[in-house]
């Protein structure tokens, strides 16, 4: 059953349109991640749902009831802010208890509920502290506890992990799905971190320029991005983009990359002759020390280890820049770089985009 529904919401400010005809629905128990670079209207979207801002057009419904014009206190939602927005002059306990107080919960019950959620989030030992005495991680957990304590039907999380350190952010990324599942709320989660989006979302709405550019499951956003921009937003290092042209000959076709003809499937026949951009993810590039069949010579200019793998900075025969990722142990043999290597990639791993529109060219199966 749909718990939260936005229909054709638009919002503009003096500086221009921030949200343009956005529709979104979230079921109870579902986590929808609204993902996009900064300044794309993610926060405005949340504020409209929260009732702190009002849309110019469109409507917001919670559990089927229209709340577009309702004031924030009448909506019964929970929200955690990026900057935590704790009440600095209240204790942690009073911070968490504030939604219950507003609902007139009797004192004994209120105490139990606050204690329960604090235990769940492991902040029960700091309930008497003021926010300024808390570590960033504890602040963030307090903010979450405050959002969850009244068991809202709709939960809004505005980049809640942005201001905590990397280690804590990672811990919360693992802990949050389990926590949210127990509350069965309709969750909108806003983030700029694609890994967080993929880890937490049942669905991802990619917001760009005030519009939802893609609505899909995490795996398919990564595998089948609708446009170059979406492809660039997901993946680290960023996808390699190489201009090319598709030519058909008989059942199959080929594109010219690095001075070679790379065969592509006949399912792309409808894009023949157009200017295209081929997207090649760094993890799909195979880098070798020696020449082999079907390899292309590259200059290896720098080796950058990252965690488990290494990123190789390559320059192709025509000076094209390319990034490739290889396993950590494998990277050792390339030293500090500045040497010749040979590269190979599977043609099936290429994503093709229309150069003019930036939209993906999908294979058409007959």
């Amino acid at each position, binding site marked *: 059953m749909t718990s939260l529904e936005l229909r054709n919401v638009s919002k503009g400010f003096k500086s221009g349109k921030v949200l343009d005809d956005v529709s979104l629905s979230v079921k109870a128990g579902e986590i929808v991640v609204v993902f996009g670079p900064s300044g794309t209207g993610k926060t405005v979207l949340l504020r409209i749902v929260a009732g702190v801002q009002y849309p110019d057009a469109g409507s917001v419904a919670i559990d089927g009831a229209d709340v577009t014009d309702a004031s924030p206190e009448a909506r019964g939602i929970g929200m955690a802010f990026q900057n935590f927005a*704790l*009440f600095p002059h209240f204790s942690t306990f009073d911070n968490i208890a*504030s939604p219950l107080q507003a609902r007139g919960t009797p004192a004994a019950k209120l105490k139990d509920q606050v204690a329960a959620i604090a235990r769940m989030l492991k902040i029960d030992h700091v309930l008497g502290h003021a926010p300024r005495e808390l570590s960033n991680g504890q602040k963030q957990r307090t903010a979450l506890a405050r959002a969850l304590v009244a068991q809202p039907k709709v939960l809004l999380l505005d980049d809640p992990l942005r201001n905590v350190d990397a280690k804590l952010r990672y811990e919360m990324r693992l802990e949050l799905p389990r926590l949210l599942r127990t509350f069965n709320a309709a969750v909108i989660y806003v983030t700029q971190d694609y890994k967080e989006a993929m880890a937490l979302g049942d669905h991802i709405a990619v917001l760009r320029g005030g519009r939802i550019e893609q609505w899909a499951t995490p795996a398919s956003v990564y595998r089948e991005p609708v446009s170059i921009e979406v492809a660039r937003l997901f993946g680290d290092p960023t996808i390699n983009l190489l201009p090319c042209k598709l030519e058909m000959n008989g059942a199959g076709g080929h594109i010219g990359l690095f001075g070679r003809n790379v065969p592509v499937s006949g399912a792309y026949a409808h894009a023949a002759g157009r200017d295209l951009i081929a997207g090649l993810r760094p993890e799909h590039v195979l880098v070798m020390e020696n020449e082999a069949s079907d390899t292309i010579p590259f200059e290896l200019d720098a080796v950058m280890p990252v965690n488990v793998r290494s990123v190789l900075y390559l320059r192709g025969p025509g000076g094209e820049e390319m990034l490739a990722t290889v396993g950590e142990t494998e990277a050792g043999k390339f030293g500090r770089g500045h040497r010749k290597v040979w590269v190979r990639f599977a043609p099936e791993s290429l994503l093709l985009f229309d150069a003019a529109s930036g939209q993906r060219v999908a294979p058409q199966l007959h």
Partner: protein
Amino acid sequence: MNQTSTLERIIRGVLIALVLVFFLFPIFWILLMSFQNNDQILRIPPSLFFEPTLQNYLALLTGTLKTTAGNLDIAFMRNLGNSLLLSACSVALSLLLGVPAAYAFARYKFRLGENIAFTLLSFRFAPPLLVLLPLSLYFKQLHLTDTYIGLIWVYQLICLPLILWIVRGYFEDISPDIEHAYRIAGHGWWKTFRKIAIPLARPGIAAAGLLAFIFAWNNFVFALILASAAKQPVTVGALAFVTASGIQYGQIAAAIVLSVTPTLLLALYAQRYLVEGLSLGAVKG
């Protein structure tokens, strides 16, 4: 760096001493004067050594001044009471009006908002005499001349802009998200204003109130023109010492010391708030 420090430290010390002497000497001199009689004060050359006398203070406290020309009644204590009443009431009224207004200016962008705020501030720029002449005419018509209410009203020209601009800076400093969070938790706007906005801006409100109090206390020209002897504050009251038989420098000095002391103590006590409040309000406004 340790290499240059000795010379640097000496020069720094000398400079600081110079500045201190320049600013503090007049206050020191007034304090000395308040313990001397007119003859000692007027002797040439002036001297730091004299027989201190409490006569000036005694005269102020008892209300009678013995001069060569006979006894003179002075209303200094009454003036002090007036100062207190006028300043306190003005600040209270200004806070009542100014704090909600400051909140509105900080949080809501409305048509002409900036203009209204600036107009209010511009009262501080205009010479008071500019408003005084028409005001004294209106006040006669409205029978407000020589009333406390009338003076408190006029004092709003001093207090309101100060409070408005300083407190506004403080409200702007509070993240709106904190108030949003309280609203979303289920509390109405009035409760949010009382429980979140006011407590968080309290240092600023206190600083602005103090400053407004000091400014009101130090005001001279409004009361001089709009009030008679019975309603006048100390600043105007001190004029009474310019008598037919000469100027009573000793009493003036003692009166100044007495009238400055409360505000000075207040300012010292709240120094930190004042600096903070002023810089916030001034820079951000």
